[in-house]
């Protein structure tokens, strides 16, 4: 079924949650102010939520499904995230929301030491059908404690899958795939993309977790990017195309376990790799990709692997500094000049 107008990333998340809850009674949401206004009489009488999530993503779901399935929790991240682990290991399919991924410190134990390890340390007898929705990303002047990108940190934990959707279409399909998955899936939404519109089918569909997507085919240079950095990669590719350099742009989509086959295949074809990630530069996804490529595709490389990331700093508040913090098409072209310059004579 096609719909007439495009819908926003945020509406898409809401629609996916709605469809997952309609499909399976075991699916429920929990988090802080997913509805808001619990026990407030006039809201209850009108069956209304207050906020519908701090960004409004879950608006309307409580009135539809009730407070039993859209559970507003106290501001107790450790206990509601751990409760989600306990509910998942006993057979439900919780979808807790961690309002900002920067709050992970409060509840990391439940993922790091409990949920991610139960299947392994219990000898394969546990499933962990748990989808953690959270938000990441700089660019909203939300400053150091509300703007970080920690999907790489979470993706470093065995037993955890991490997806970072770039488009509304993928957001819906990946969220539904995450909720169907029998593992912890961290579904990390870039809050600065919430207003982005795109074509999205109304019906239920899934997009495979663990599969990177080639957004633009090219033969000269591979650019791997995560989340909104894919748009930066596309801008870089557009710019390079004007100079006769054909870049292949890969949206990693899944940060853990990331799609090595697609990346390696591309690098084997192009011999050059730029990785763009707005997370910090060390001990992170970009470093991991660079390491695997250096290991597995060394003989195919015609130049150094370039990682274009945020600097090794917290996210600054001031608009000009925050813009400087984020990789941009210009910063990519400047920082990766070495391998790009190499290409131009070949193409000329």
């Amino acid at each position, binding site marked *: 079924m096609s719909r007439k107008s495009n819908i926003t990333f945020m509406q898409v998340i809401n629609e996916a949650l709605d469809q997952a809850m309609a499909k399976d009674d075991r699916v*429920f949401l929990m988090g802080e102010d997913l509805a808001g206004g619990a026990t407030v009489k006039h809201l209850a009488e009108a069956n209304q939520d207050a906020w519908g999530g701090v960004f409004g993503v879950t608006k309307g779901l409580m009135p539809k499904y009730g407070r*039993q399935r859209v*559970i507003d*929790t*106290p501001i*107790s991240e*450790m*206990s*509601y*995230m*751990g*409760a*989600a*682990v*306990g*509910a*998942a*290991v*006993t*057979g*439900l399919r*919780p979808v807790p929301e961690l309002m900002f991924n920067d709050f992970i410190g409060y509840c990391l*134990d*439940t993922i790091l*030491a*409990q949920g991610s*390890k*139960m*299947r*392994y*340390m*219990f*000898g*394969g*007898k*546990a*499933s*962990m059908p748990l989808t953690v929705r959270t938000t990441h990303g700089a660019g909203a002047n939300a400053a150091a404690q509300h703007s970080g990108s920690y999907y790489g940190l979470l993706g470093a934990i*065995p*037993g955890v*899958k991490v997806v970072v959707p770039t488009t509304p279409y993928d957001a819906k399909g990946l969220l539904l795939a995450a909720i169907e998955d*029998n*593992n912890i899936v961290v579904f990390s939404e870039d809050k600065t993309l919430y207003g982005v519109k795109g074509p999205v089918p109304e019906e239920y569909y899934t997009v495979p977790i663990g599969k990177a997507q080639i957004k633009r085919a090219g033969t000269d240079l591979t650019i791997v990017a995560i989340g909104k950095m894919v748009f930066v990669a596309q801008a870089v590719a557009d710019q390079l195309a004007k100079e006769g350099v054909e870049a292949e742009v890969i949206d990693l989509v899944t940060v853990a376990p990331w799609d090595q086959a697609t990346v390696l295949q591309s690098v084997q074809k192009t011999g050059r790799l730029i990785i763009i990630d707005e997370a910090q530069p060390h001990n992170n996804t970009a470093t991991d990709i660079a390491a695997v490529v250096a290991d597995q595709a060394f003989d195919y490389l015609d130049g150094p692997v370039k990682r274009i990331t945020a600097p090794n700093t917290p996210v600054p508040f001031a608009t000009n500094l925050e813009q400087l913090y984020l990789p941009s098409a210009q910063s990519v072209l400047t920082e990766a000049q070495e391998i790009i310059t190499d290409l131009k004579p070949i193409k000329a």
Partner: protein
Amino acid sequence: MKALTNETAKAAYQKMNTIRDFEEHVRKIFAAGVIPGFVHLYAGEEAIAVAACAHLNQQDYITSTHRGHGHCIAKGCDVNGMMAEIYGKTTGLCKGKGGSMHIADLDQGMLGANGMVGGGFPIAIGAALRQQYLKTDRVVICFFGDGAANEGAFHESLNMAAIWKLPVVFVNENNGFGEATPPKYASASKTFASRAAAYDMPGEKVDGKDFMAVYNAVGQAVDRARAGEGPSLIECQTYRTYGHFEGDEQTYKFDSPEEIAFAKRDDIQEFRAYALKANLFTEAEATAVEDQAMAAVQAAVQFAEDSPLPDAQALYEDVYAD
């Protein structure tokens, strides 16, 4: 509340003995270097796990602690599988991949011993939320120590259990030491039970060496939970017979004559004496049960020793579900 019948008393006595024998054996072989890793022994605290779990059915859940062997046995975990797990053998309850601190048996409602102090609180909340969500009458017991009571998760989880009236009973095993530090230093509350008042739930402190005291207090709390009346907190004052971990020199012990006297009490002997006097079982039955417990532990040791190590391939298995 489930009445303590002759049958259930005998079963409880057997479990207490099984735990003691199990732990004494583990202690011995750990000292001999037969088993690897860390072990935290439950010997001396048997009355709590067994009396509490006596109120549970197989489908009820418990969360446990790093000192979890007693909870496992009390909840019905297979002793062979437990011992093999501690030996790191493939026949272990967790295929040798969990070890002493992570023994779990979901089929028995045992949601895992837990290497993280206080790690069980939120998991118990989740399991209890499940019961409420699916409208079952199952309950959850969350065992935790005096050390765990000072984790933030304690407060979050008691609060959440109370606001949602979850079917969970928080059973605090105050064994006198959080690692090497007594609660009189580590806790501002005179009792942990008193903290229940902050979350508007019933709180009671009982003698954790006294099987019947634990049995009655937890029984009432389990009834409340099953009836949908919400959580309770029961503090059981007991004593940690051995160290925090095996190998601990325990130089922090025996601070007062009261502590020395309390440490000498044996919950199993006390329950035996009580049960004989109350005609719950006879001397001959008691002896038979003691023998059965010992035989079961010896069989478990044999089973564990005879079992193979995990295949190398097991290292890579069960990280993700399909």
